[in-house]
């Protein structure tokens, strides 16, 4: 991280949707800053609000039954209340997005070159030939072989990994300062995932773009992120640098996440540690700490919502939402010597 002005400041963002089952509070008071050139990983499971947060920044969750509160400032532009015209100027040119599924996020009946040219010309008055040249360069840069021939191919002529590269080329076409990648490698095979992650690392070096990486995979996070925000049921429950989250995690949910990943470089445990129970329904969330019903360490104070604040001495940027004291956390998170995890809770059927 550096001390430069943050590129993007999100302040107390709340997103709710009116549904038949009642109001679904998908994002509940999310705040973070993104510095130029940094990779912020937003980690959480399905329904944690991580994708809704990312999409709201791009104005992609707007609909008659959605309600927004809070702010998101990008270089002096307020994104949450921005007009559609303002958003069109920012989208793609300043903030670009890579979606999870490269199979469905490209237009299947338009040649990939034309799709990228369209985006370039939407933002810059570049003549056709020049825009096309730029597309070929972009495709080469993201590692598509024989780019000059392939620029006229349709999406179906590419494999999943290649399509994701096309998506990345599309996202980079106008040199954005912020790249939002929503599970960019989830749909890909591991060897291809490694290639794409390597590519994203290189691109950050070359272009200095800041990246918001939305993912559920802590392995990918350890590979590429500078800072991490862990989300659970619409709230950030812990936020800190990569090393703070991995080596000094404060929130029991983070312990559970860290404990439940399978590791190929360690002897296998007899049983996989799991977090018992299920995330709450966003239309009917428990009072106080949302993780309370699944947390083995719950106590009286947990019925009050713990604020997101710095609770560890010497780590001013390390915020969490757990009432336990720092010492209690240190002893409770060790399930075995040197191993972080979440202890078992009295189990009720799922």
């Amino acid at each position: 991280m550096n001390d430069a002005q943050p590129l993007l400041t999100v302040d107390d963002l709340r997103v709710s949707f009116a549904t038949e089952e009642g109001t679904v509070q998908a994002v509940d008071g999310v705040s973070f800053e993104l510095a130029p050139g940094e990779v912020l990983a937003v980690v959480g499971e399905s329904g944690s609000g991580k994708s809704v947060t990312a999409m709201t920044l791009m104005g992609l969750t707007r609909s008659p039954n959605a309600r927004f509160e809070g702010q998101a400032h990008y270089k002096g532009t307020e994104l949450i209340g921005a007009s559609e015209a303002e958003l069109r100027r920012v989208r793609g040119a300043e903030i670009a997005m890579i979606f999870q599924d490269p199979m469905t996020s490209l237009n299947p009946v338009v040649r990939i070159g034309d799709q990228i040219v369209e985006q370039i010309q939407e933002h810059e008055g570049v003549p056709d030939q020049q825009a096309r040249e730029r597309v070929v360069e972009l495709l080469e840069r993201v590692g598509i072989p024989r780019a000059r021939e392939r620029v006229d191919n349709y999406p179906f002529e590419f494999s999943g990994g290649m399509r994701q590269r096309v998506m990345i080329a599309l996202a980079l076409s106008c040199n954005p300062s912020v790249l939002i990648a929503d599970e960019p490698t989830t749909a890909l095979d591991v060897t291809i995932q490694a290639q794409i992650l390597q590519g994203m690392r290189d691109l950050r070096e070359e272009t200095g773009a800041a990246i918001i990486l939305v993912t559920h995979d802590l392995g990918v996070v350890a590979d590429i992120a500078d800072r991490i925000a862990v989300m659970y049921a619409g709230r950030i429950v812990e936020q800190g640098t990569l090393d703070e989250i991995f080596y000094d995690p404060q929130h029991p949910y983070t312990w559970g996440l860290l404990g439940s990943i399978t590791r190929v470089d360690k002897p296998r445990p007899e049983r996989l540690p799991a977090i018992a129970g299920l995330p709450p329904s966003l239309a009917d969330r428990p009072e106080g700490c949302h993780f309370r019903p699944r947390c083995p360490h719950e106590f009286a104070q947990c019925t009050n919502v713990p604020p997101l604040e710095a609770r560890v001495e010497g780590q001013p940027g390390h915020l969490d939402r757990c009432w336990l004291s720092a010492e209690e956390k240190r002893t409770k998170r060790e399930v075995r010597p040197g191993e972080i995890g979440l202890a078992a809770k009295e189990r009720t059927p799922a």
Partner: protein
Amino acid sequence: MSVEATEPAAGGAAAPNGAPLIEVDHLKVFFPIKQGILIEREVARVHAVNDVTLSIAEGETLGLVGESGCGKTTMSRAIMRLIDATEGTLRFRGEDVTSAGRKQMEPLRREMQMVFQDPFASLNPRKRVGQIIGMPLRLHGSDRKGVEPQVRELLGKVGLHPEHINRFPHEFSGGQRQRIGVARALALEPRLIVLDEPVSALDVSVQAQIINLLDDLQDDFKLTYLFVAHDLSVVRHVSDRIAVMYLGKLMEVSSAEELYTKPIHPYTSALLAAIPIPDPEENRRRERLVVSGEPPNPINPPSGCVFHPRCPRATDVCREIEPPLARYPNGHLAACHHPMSVTQAEVAATTKDPSSPLTAGEELPEPPQTGGEGVQP
């Protein structure tokens, strides 16, 4: 299940204990590509499974791992007799079922069940849970009254509330739906369950719940699992042995533990190296072998070793001669001319395993040049 793996078993890798439940012998599944308007001619073939020999012992879990398009799903479908084999034989508890008809298969269908990857697509949205789980029972002769208590019991076994018997699938989360899928597979008390990426669609914390459930059920019901997965991380926790496939061929077969500490095939090593380790320091330290390129087209598989176009160790021999499955200590099999993580002595002592593809050459692997430390993943 522990795998002692010392005796060479007939046509099988790593000699599983107990009688083989499934024996696959030089199995090939090709899909024809046809062209022409009135007279369709076969113009090419997709070599989905190309000469694979494997066996699964009673009570064992075999992990079948490979990337998209490697033939693992075709293989599992062929074992279930949902796809016909082009060549080779398939035996279920010693009985040849390669071309068994509907009649002959019917009693066997009870014994082999499947759990699918996508718990959203594999349950009929218009049927209640009770009907979904009860259907296999009804099909195999239980009457309507007898089914309900059984379904309730099954729900309890997979960790769901028996009262939910009248709910619809959409009322459940992904993990709960996968439990319903498991309950349906269990209904007929099968011997074999083919699990086709049963946890890939689930969140990490829920994945662990389902894996643990499968583990418990295996102990309770003495089940045999074929666990199909696209990467090596999850499969390790359930498998006794693991078979790694690439482009329709077996690359390596080994006991689950040894595969992770001693990958012999460079492809296995690449698969392991591609999994990011959730530990930042470890990650910074680790030298990553990122294989370039993508799997080639299975219509026209490369000559020699199918992995050679992407392999960092490939030489001329790999381009020309298909490596046989060489047998290393502990019944560890690998099809590679330039094996990793093995000593010179181990390489010198290898023999060609009878499960090698028929087209494979006789060339056993070359001993590594230096001492034999190989390259650690």
